[in-house]
């Protein structure tokens, strides 16, 4: 078993970590405090071309393996969670179905500019009354001649109120439950499509998250992103593992940022005449954090490796997401404790990591649902 990253992956990691340190880290505090989308940083960063990692070269992508994309997600989240969410939305969920099922014309109109950062996009699952229970969504898509008519309101949409296009998850037949789930492309400017309220969030500030309203929104037939009306949720299943592993990678990124802050602090901060890093209980905290982060890393990257090998990693992806997220909660908690009173000050970074980490508990799936699901996979249908 060779646990090493390849030389190329290691070089990529080194390079992107440096790019994040130079471009994103210096802005992270400001992005969080102002809670405004950093358009200038978006333009500067997307110009470098990293958003196309997971798509083929013909659309401006880089066709990279999953391990490399996870490295990217981990590093960029380490820099700024809000900014990372926005970027990753353009790279994965916001563009996947366009890539998978869009016509060539749609791909040129939406996918290509999204990879270049010229268009911002998103995907809309969540509603006021449905999160994990996807089958219960009330956003409908009704066929009308050569068009589909979308009706419904979506909540908690990352990039929503600033998006140029979005993939809307709607039901074509509520009676069929999950088998009625389908994906539709709605572009800005379409009559009946409007931005709603922006949510004022505890963390992941800087990315604009909010409501999208579809009121008799009429879209052409080709905007249905699918090939079988009953297979929508199956197609979603194709990327669920990737999304979960990605969330795990994000969790690790946040944990690393918090860990690093705590490390520098423990080395410098003096109490009772010695740097606190010399005390046993503080040392134990680092031992535990590092061990758990290492375990999370192994789960995440092994699952990513399995994806690259074409192996079924449904269970491993869930483990990676859940474990890494729980570890992250612990690490950001410990980091604020190590900071003592200063962990409570908005002036220092640990509180930001602490607030940001909370989104992982529901982003990519709540742990309650995921653990139940994993348990069922392990035990089998009884």
């Amino acid at each position: 078993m060779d646990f090493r990253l390849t030389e190329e992956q290691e070089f990529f990691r080194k390079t992107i970590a440096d790019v994040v340190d130079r471009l994103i880290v210096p802005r992270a505090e400001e992005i969080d405090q102002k809670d405004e989308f950093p358009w200038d940083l978006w333009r500067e960063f997307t110009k470098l071309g990293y958003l196309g990692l997971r798509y083929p070269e013909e659309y401006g992508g880089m066709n990279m393996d999953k391990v490399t994309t996870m490295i990217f997600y981990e590093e960029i989240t380490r820099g700024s969670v809000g900014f990372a969410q926005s970027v990753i939305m353009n790279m994965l969920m916001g563009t996947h179905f366009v890539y998978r099922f869009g016509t060539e014309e749609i791909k040129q109109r939406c996918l290509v500019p999204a990879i270049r950062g010229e268009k911002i996009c998103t995907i809309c699952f969540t509603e006021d009354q449905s999160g994990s229970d996807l089958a219960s969504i009330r956003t409908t898509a009704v066929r009308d001649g050569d068009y589909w008519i979308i009706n419904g309101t979506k909540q908690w949409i990352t990039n929503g109120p600033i998006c140029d296009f979005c993939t809307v998850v709607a039901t074509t037949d509520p009676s069929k439950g999950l088998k009625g789930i389908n994906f539709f492309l709605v572009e800005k400017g379409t009559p009946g499509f409007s931005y709603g309220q922006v949510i004022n969030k505890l963390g992941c500030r800087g990315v604009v998250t909010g409501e999208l309203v579809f009121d008799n929104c009429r879209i052409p037939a080709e905007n249905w992103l699918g090939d079988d009306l009953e297979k929508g949720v199956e197609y979603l299943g194709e990327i669920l593992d990737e999304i979960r592993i990605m969330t795990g990678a994000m969790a690790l990124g946040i944990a690393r940022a918090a860990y690093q802050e705590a490390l520098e602090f423990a080395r410098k901060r003096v109490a009772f005449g010695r740097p606190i890093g010399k005390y046993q209980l503080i040392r134990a905290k680092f031992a535990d954090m590092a061990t758990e982060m290492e375990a999370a890393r192994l789960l995440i990257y092994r699952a990513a490796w399995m994806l690259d090998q074409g192996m079924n990693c449904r269970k491993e992806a869930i483990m990676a997401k859940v474990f890494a997220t729980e570890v992250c909660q612990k690490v950001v908690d410990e980091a604020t404790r190590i900071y003592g009173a200063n962990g409570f000050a908005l002036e220092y970074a640990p509180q930001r990591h602490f607030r940001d980490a909370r989104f992982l508990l529901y982003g990519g799936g709540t742990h309650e649902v995921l653990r139940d699901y994993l348990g069922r996979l392990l035990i089998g249908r009884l």
Partner: protein
Amino acid sequence: MEIICFIKQVPDNEAQVEVKGDGTGVNVEERYGLNFFDSLAVEEALRIKEKAGGKVTAITLGPERSVEVLRTAIAMGVDEAHLISDFSLQEGDEASTARVLAEAAKKIGYDLILCGREAFDDSSGAVGPMVAEFLGIPAVSVVTKVEVHPEERKAVVEREMEGGKEEIELPLPALLTAQKGLNEPRVPPVMGVMKAMKAEIKRWNLGDLGLDAQEVAPRGKTIRYVPPPKRPPVRYIKGEPQEMVKELVELLRDEAKVI
């Protein structure tokens, strides 16, 4: 314009550095990157090439792991990169390095050589001027502005020393060392990273350069390493501002004896 950049892989600024208990060496945390001043040199080389055409080659002398900074240079846009690595060079000093790099430059050919003003680890800054001397070409150190005039075979540079700012004109081929303020090194785009990941990097040893260990023997020897002197912990001066100030002045006068 054929431009050569000599670059070096050095530990990160924040890498932990600890002198071994017996003073025979230093334990350095394994976190490396491209020497900051060298990144300025690479950036400048790329800008000159973008204006005047030509080719940029990056060369480094170091252990196998140094190949990473060559890839970074390629990701930024250099055309070719070479690693010079040889066991006999481990104990080498600035003169050894300069001899080797000079031979490499001769082998490749150049109109201009750019390097950083000094490396973070050795902080000596001697290699650049020594290379120029071995090659018999003029050199200017710590430049903050470079203008190349290829048809007139000259460069006009600006630099600042303790006495003030100078403008210097020198014929090509020449060697320049980069100082902060020369430029802002570019961030590698993903296309550059892909190219770097796939790039074939040539390795050379002393034999490939026609040198033997004797010729590049160091001219000095390190006897031992010592940790930096420990400062006694800070003495906080307390009280109201007026009291603080009074006490400080007394301490500076009587204890520290600096006023």
